[in-house]
């Protein structure tokens, strides 16, 4: 069932207002933009039964920022070290999150985790490229999946 | 005061000229397309430096974005045809 969520209209309007803020002379363009954005939102699936839980963002965002700082520092260290300490390769990860926004969010977040990015997704089989230390990468993937599951209010079986 | 601006503008100009030369001399079509996109985006930076943000916007969106995407499409069509000719 496709419904226009007023929250989404509000969010889009807020984003427009923030991006255009010093001069709001083109406000009518903003109305068109918000309308188009809402149309896309509805066309791409509309409001999902399970959305993100805002309260959990307060826990997730700092953790994610810390991870992405560590990811950047890790890459920087490897790039600048004269010996180029790399052990790259691919590993496979079986996703337990169901199809939907949670899974998309999870796959996108992987790319900012230290040492891993998602390369291919076929059904439940996710191919991940790692820069070094595949075991640590797998552990972090599992942790991220659990946290994303929590963010979207669903239980992810630990396996 | 002005020398910092000169450094930045110098880098942008050298980059533009270098990209243009390389773009015209390369024999690899795909590389030329990619360099064209890079050239468009660098030119947008140049427009920004001379205070024409609106031109920079148009250059980035149309010059680099739309034209670049069209070039990529044309390149694909072209190579399909070459492959067919070679296969036949």
């Amino acid at each position, binding site marked *: 069932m496709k419904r226009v969520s007023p929250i989404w209209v509000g969010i889009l309007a807020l984003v427009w207002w923030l991006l255009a803020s010093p001069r709001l002379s083109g406000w009518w363009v903003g109305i068109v933009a918000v309308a188009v954005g809402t149309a896309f939102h509805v066309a791409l699936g509309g409001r999902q039964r399970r959305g993100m839980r805002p309260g959990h963002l307060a826990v997730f965002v700092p953790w994610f920022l810390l991870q992405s700082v560590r990811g950047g520092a890790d890459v920087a260290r490897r790039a600048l070290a004269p010996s180029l300490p790399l052990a790259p390769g691919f590993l496979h990860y079986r996703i337990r999150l169901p199809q939907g926004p949670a899974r998309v969010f999870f796959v996108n977040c992987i790319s900012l985790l230290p040492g891993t990015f998602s390369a291919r997704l076929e059904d439940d089989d996710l191919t991940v490229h790692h820069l070094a230390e595949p075991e640590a990468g797998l552990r972090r993937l599992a942790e991220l999946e659990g946290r994303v599951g929590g963010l979207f209010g669903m239980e992810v079986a630990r396996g | 005061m002005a020398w910092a601006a000169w450094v*930045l503008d110098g880098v942008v100009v050298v980059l533009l000229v*270098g990209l243009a*030369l390389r773009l015209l001399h*390369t024999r690899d079509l795909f590389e030329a397309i990619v360099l064209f996109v890079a050239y468009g985006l660098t030119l947008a*930076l140049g427009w920004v430096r001379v*205070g024409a943000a609106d031109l920079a916007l148009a250059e980035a969106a149309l010059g680099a974005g739309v034209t670049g*995407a069209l070039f990529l*499409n044309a390149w694909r069509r072209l190579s399909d045809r*070459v492959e067919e000719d070679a296969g036949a």
Partner: protein
Amino acid sequence: MDDALLLLAAFLALNVAAGLVRVARGPSPADRMVVAQLFGTTGVAILLVLAEAMHAPELRTVALVFALLAVVISVAFVKRGWVRRLGSEPVGGGPGAGGPGAGGHEGEAMEAER
């Protein structure tokens, strides 16, 4: 402080220039397409710094366009396959980014960075 910001922007522009060496050398088309990512982040950084240094908030809009362009260009690129396409070399990995340069002629501006 504005001068320091301009120098920072110049430094970032030099980073882009160095990154373009990779674009010129390839060897695979995907290696060349990193130009999208390069301008998508470093270009945005330059524009944000310039918006502050030149007191021109409208440059942030240009930064937004750069970020969106990175996605548009790479989607246009990956839409269908690309190996064995006209003019693109057979791919080869190898340490040190192996493989000879595309045609043996590197750009003049790039030469210094190699």
